[in-house]
């Protein structure tokens, strides 16, 4: 009798599927050695960018990474849709400000402050996380969103509190003006006076949290959280106290957010209500979803992309780099085999040369002479007066791109791709690169759409199956 149940074939298919594709292979390498790669890059970064601004961008990126790591515990592991998350970031920041500024005249040692904030916020999180025992999904989301709104309202309005037995109104949060004059951190006698200091502090913290969560992920608690996300009822029946573990996940995420909040307050030397809005909440979620829910490396990677890319897009050079890089990677990934890629690339050149000759001879007025070397022969440079024409081309480009995506038959599709790619570069060089404020948003949005379309479960997220 043949051996039953040894279907190696399934194994083979799974293995090949997980290894196939450039992105998949990159993901594999990153998921194994990602922390070392990240640390090396992050250590080199401040010396490459040099200026204070670049380091500030790095600080924001690391803060976002820390926030995404905390949110990953709540959303990625336990599957609790928490829209109040940013409130705990705010609580941490205000907590640090209360205990390290002239607001109440308290200047406690930094480590003590952070410890107090962490413990208090864990308890607050455990209290406010109680609804998670019963509520799931959108119901929990709307309830926790209320927590965030309540926090913002309190921060805005607790500046003229009338208390019994106290003369005059008492200002706790400083209202819309927040609390300024927050002292920098001082750890073990070392005063963190510069942005650079906080950069390295955050780097240490991100690594520590990532390692700690990695350990937790493999423990019985981590496995139980994932089981709760998969099927709460079945998890409960398998001896897991689901209610208590959900609350712990919620409070753990809140604590990580609060610790990041203390650093944020110290870097900014102040806290203001407008720092903790729904907009920030969406950014944190975007980072986590882009990186892949449930993946520690993904949370960090997503945060870095979300925080760095808009900064990279500030300069035309950076924007160009991203645009052509994206175009190249996209073409190589989508236009297979190589012959087809060569066809399309050649087609774009040919169309460009013909178009340029026609335009130069028929309407020389709209063209503005010669431009940057690489595009000389095939790219039309429009005169600044022809801006309406370029705007029309922009609309044409969008229609062409959509048509190229929608059409399936290759013999109709490839010519469209050629036309779409050409107008894309044309509009890009003539219009978009000149107006960075619009381009940043557009390009950033397009990048996110493309990345999510290519990897629906996030860059480093695992494919999830709901019912089979």
């Amino acid at each position, binding site marked *: 009798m043949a051996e039953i149940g040894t279907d190696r074939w399934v194994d083979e298919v799974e293995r090949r599927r997980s290894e196939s594709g450039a992105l998949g292979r990159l993901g594999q390498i990153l998921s194994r050695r990602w922390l070392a790669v990240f640390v090396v890059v992050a250590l080199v970064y401040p010396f490459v960018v040099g200026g204070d601004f670049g380091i500030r961008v790095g600080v924001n990126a690391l803060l976002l990474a820390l926030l995404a790591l905390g949110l990953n515990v709540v959303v990625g592991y336990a599957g609790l849709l928490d829209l109040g998350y940013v409130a705990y970031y705010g609580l941490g920041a205000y907590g640090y400000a209360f205990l390290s500024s002239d607001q109440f005249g308290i200047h406690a040692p930094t480590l003590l402050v952070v410890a107090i904030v962490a413990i208090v916020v864990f308890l607050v999180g455990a209290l406010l996380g109680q609804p998670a025992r019963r509520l799931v999904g959108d119901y929990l989301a709307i309830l926790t969103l209320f927590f965030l709104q309540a926090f913002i309202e309190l921060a805005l309005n607790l500046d003229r509190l009338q208390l019994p037995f106290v003369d005059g109104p008492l200002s706790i949060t400083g209202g819309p003006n927040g609390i300024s004059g927050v002292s920098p951190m001082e750890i073990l006698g070392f005063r963190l006076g510069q942005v650079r200091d906080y950069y390295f502090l955050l780097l240490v913290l991100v690594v520590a949290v990532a390692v700690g969560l990695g350990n937790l992920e493999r*423990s019985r*608690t981590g496995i139980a959280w994932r089981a709760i996300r998969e099927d709460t009822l*079945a998890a409960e029946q398998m001896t897991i106290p689901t209610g208590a573990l959900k609350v712990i996940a919620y409070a753990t995420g809140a604590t990580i957010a609060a610790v990041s909040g203390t650093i944020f307050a110290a870097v900014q030397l102040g806290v203001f209500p407008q720092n903790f809005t729904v907009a920030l909440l969406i950014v944190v979620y975007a980072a986590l979803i882009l990186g892949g829910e449930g993946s520690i490396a993904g949370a960090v990677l997503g945060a870095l992309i979300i925080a760095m890319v808009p900064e990279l897009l500030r300069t035309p050079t950076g924007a160009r780099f991203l645009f052509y890089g994206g175009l190249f990677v996209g073409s190589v990934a989508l236009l297979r085999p190589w012959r087809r890629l060569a066809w399309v690339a050649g087609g774009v050149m040919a169309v460009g040369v013909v178009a340029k000759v026609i335009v130069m001879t028929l309407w020389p007025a709209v063209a503005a002479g010669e431009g940057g070397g690489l595009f000389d022969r095939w790219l039309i440079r429009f005169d600044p007066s022809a801006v309406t024409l370029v705007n029309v081309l922009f609309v044409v480009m969008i229609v062409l791109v959509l048509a190229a995506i929608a059409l399936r038959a290759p013999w109709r599709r490839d010519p469209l791709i050629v036309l779409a790619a050409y107008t894309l570069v044309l509009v890009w060089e003539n219009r978009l690169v000149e107006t960075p404020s619009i381009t940043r948003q557009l390009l950033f949005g397009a990048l996110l759409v493309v990345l999510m379309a290519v990897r629906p479960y996030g860059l480093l997220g695992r494919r999830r199956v709901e019912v089979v």
Partner: protein
Amino acid sequence: MAVLELRGLTKRFGGLLVVDGLDLVVREGEIVSLIGPNGAGKTTVFNLISGIFPPDDGDILLEGSSIVRLAGHEIAARGVARTFQTLRVFLNMTVAENVVVAEYARGRVGILRSILGTPAARREARQLRADAEQRLGFFGKRLVGYRFDQPAYSLSYANRRRLEIARAMATGARMLLLDEPAAGMNPAETHEISRLIGRLRDDLGYTILVIEHDMHVVEGISDRVAALDHGVKIAEGSFEEVASDPAVVEAYLGKGDAIAK
């Protein structure tokens, strides 16, 4: 000695009486089958025992003490674990993880030590994994080796049923509630699952309460059979006694004159 005892167990859903004053005793080392037409209330009995919802009346005794007010995870940790009629394995977790999940109550390492990755935490994680692998070995070669680290969604239907049984065993329970273990299986697999249920009792000493529609399975494994219809126990005894009971025949087939017509 009675492991599980149901006394006058009653459950209403609105105006519908789903389980009506059910008395049932399962003794140590017994395999008892619960049969009855669809909608008779069999799965509701399982849900009541495992604490998914509380009974409206009556009592459930596990080894002499009431478990009616306990939460689901406490009941499981006390020694009654179940499988589900509609499979509920954790699809996006690996085969081994599915079993490790159920060992939660046996772990001693808390969240802080887990984060720090202390030697005790590592040792415990290794131990739980080793236990899970050994548990899966009970099913022959089907769920071992390269299967350990495959996602559960890659398993066949029959293997998912086996995985659910392994998971229930991993809770450390002494009593298993199996909800239609042979549902959706082909004749060969059905035969195998019958033998497996026998081995669970004979080799590993489990006490088993099983819901089953396949009468060959019921006949093959049961020490005793209880038949339910509209929430009422209409017969109890050996398979032959219950199968020939007029009330049971009527519940399954309708009244004699209706067939004759």
